């Protein structure tokens, strides 16, 4: 029986197959706005899909969003699905979002680490890495948020394949990371990159590997502040914000640093809410409140990107 995205239960967690099938339903319901690109495949040969929201034009300036790079953080793809539906639904209804989409495309990778995500559903709920094999070690997987070519192998990474923050043998060794890198570099017009994680209630911008501020630090601070203020206005969730190294810890090889170092000025990383003190095992009844508040912050970032072309 054909399901549609209205009857889909957004207040629950779903398997990879359910999410991929939901993507197809969304595309079928909004064919003039939403399409799907397959930008690569995972180590275990699962397709890596990206939803493209576009109202036309060629190679428009674009916003990149991704969720779920650390497989066990289920709240992030769950938030991603709700958000993708919101984008599709609000186009033509919400003047601000409509203005964004009339000017820019949005690319949204909802399951950034499909092998890891599947592994959390079938074998080990606590898995956070990819599933690639490391030569010379019986330990499996690389932390895909330490695998980017941005001070690769520096502070905050591990060279031990058994560690959760194992950087991998070389930058972009993970096809899950390389697929995004290739896509963004080929596109050449991505103006914002937002990677969504859980669960420390933070909004951060580069750098993670050095305490030297970026040339755009003041502007990024202002954008982050307005996003966090908007987010907190809905349910009172308190976020901290700032550069990654000053807000959380030194981390090298991260998505956000790579984005900034490759000319994407508006490069952010979210750590979603932890209300209830369950870490990334956030109770399912908090999925929608999390997504709703995150949406307000995302809109602030996207509006700023729309209004400050570079």
């Amino acid at each position, binding site marked *: 029986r054909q399901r549609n995205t209205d009857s889909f239960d957004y*207040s629950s967690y779903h398997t990879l197959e359910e999410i991929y099938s939901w993507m197809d339903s969304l595309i079928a319901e909004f064919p003039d706005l939403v399409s799907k690109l397959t930008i690569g495949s995972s180590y275990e040969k699962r397709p890596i899909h990206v939803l493209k929201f576009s109202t036309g034009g060629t190679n428009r300036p674009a916003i990149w969003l991704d969720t779920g790079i650390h497989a066990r953080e289920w709240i992030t793809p769950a938030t991603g699905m709700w958000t993708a539906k919101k984008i599709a639904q609000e186009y033509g209804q919400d003047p601000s979002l409509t203005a964004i989409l009339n000017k820019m495309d949005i690319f949204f990778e909802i399951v950034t680490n499909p092998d890891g995500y599947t592994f959390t559903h079938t074998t080990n709920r606590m898995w956070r890495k990819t599933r690639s094999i490391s030569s010379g070690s019986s330990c499996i997987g690389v932390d895909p948020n330490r695998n980017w070519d941005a001070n690769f192998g520096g502070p905050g990474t591990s060279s031990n394949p058994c560690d959760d923050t194992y950087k991998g043998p070389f930058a972009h060794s993970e096809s899950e990371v390389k697929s995004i890198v290739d896509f963004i570099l080929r596109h050449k017009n991505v103006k914002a990159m937002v990677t969504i994680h859980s669960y420390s209630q933070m909004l951060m911008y580069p750098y993670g590997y050095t305490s030297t501020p970026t040339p755009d630090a003041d502007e990024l601070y202002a954008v982050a502040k307005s996003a966090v203020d908007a987010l907190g206005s809905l349910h009172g969730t308190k976020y901290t914000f700032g550069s990654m190294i000053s807000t959380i810890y030194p981390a090298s090889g991260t998505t956000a640093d790579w984005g900034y170092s490759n000319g994407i000025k508006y490069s952010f990383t979210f750590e979603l809410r932890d209300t209830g003190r369950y870490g990334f095992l956030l109770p399912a009844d908090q999925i929608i409140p999390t997504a709703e508040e995150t949406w307000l912050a995302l809109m602030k970032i996207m509006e700023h990107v729309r209004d400050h072309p570079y």
Partner: protein
Amino acid sequence: QKLFIGDQVLRITAESHEQIALLQELQGLEHLELDFWREPVRPSLSVDVRVPFASLQPVRVFLQSHGIQYDVMIDNLQVLLDSEMEEMNHSRQ
């Protein structure tokens, strides 16, 4: 399928840089198989760590003997995972 029966998640509040250093030392004890959800970085950030059932006793002793404050964030991880799975099955039906 890996089970987490009796595993606890502790939320640890370090009060000084010395205590952070002790937690980093704890992090290096590989035989305890600790899974740090939030790493020890600075006193203002709490540390969350999943402690396998078999390591609960030594970890608690370590924390208590150094006067490091903690509370139990998740009492039995597997119970939470079971209820999560039940919720998903219910939703799928």
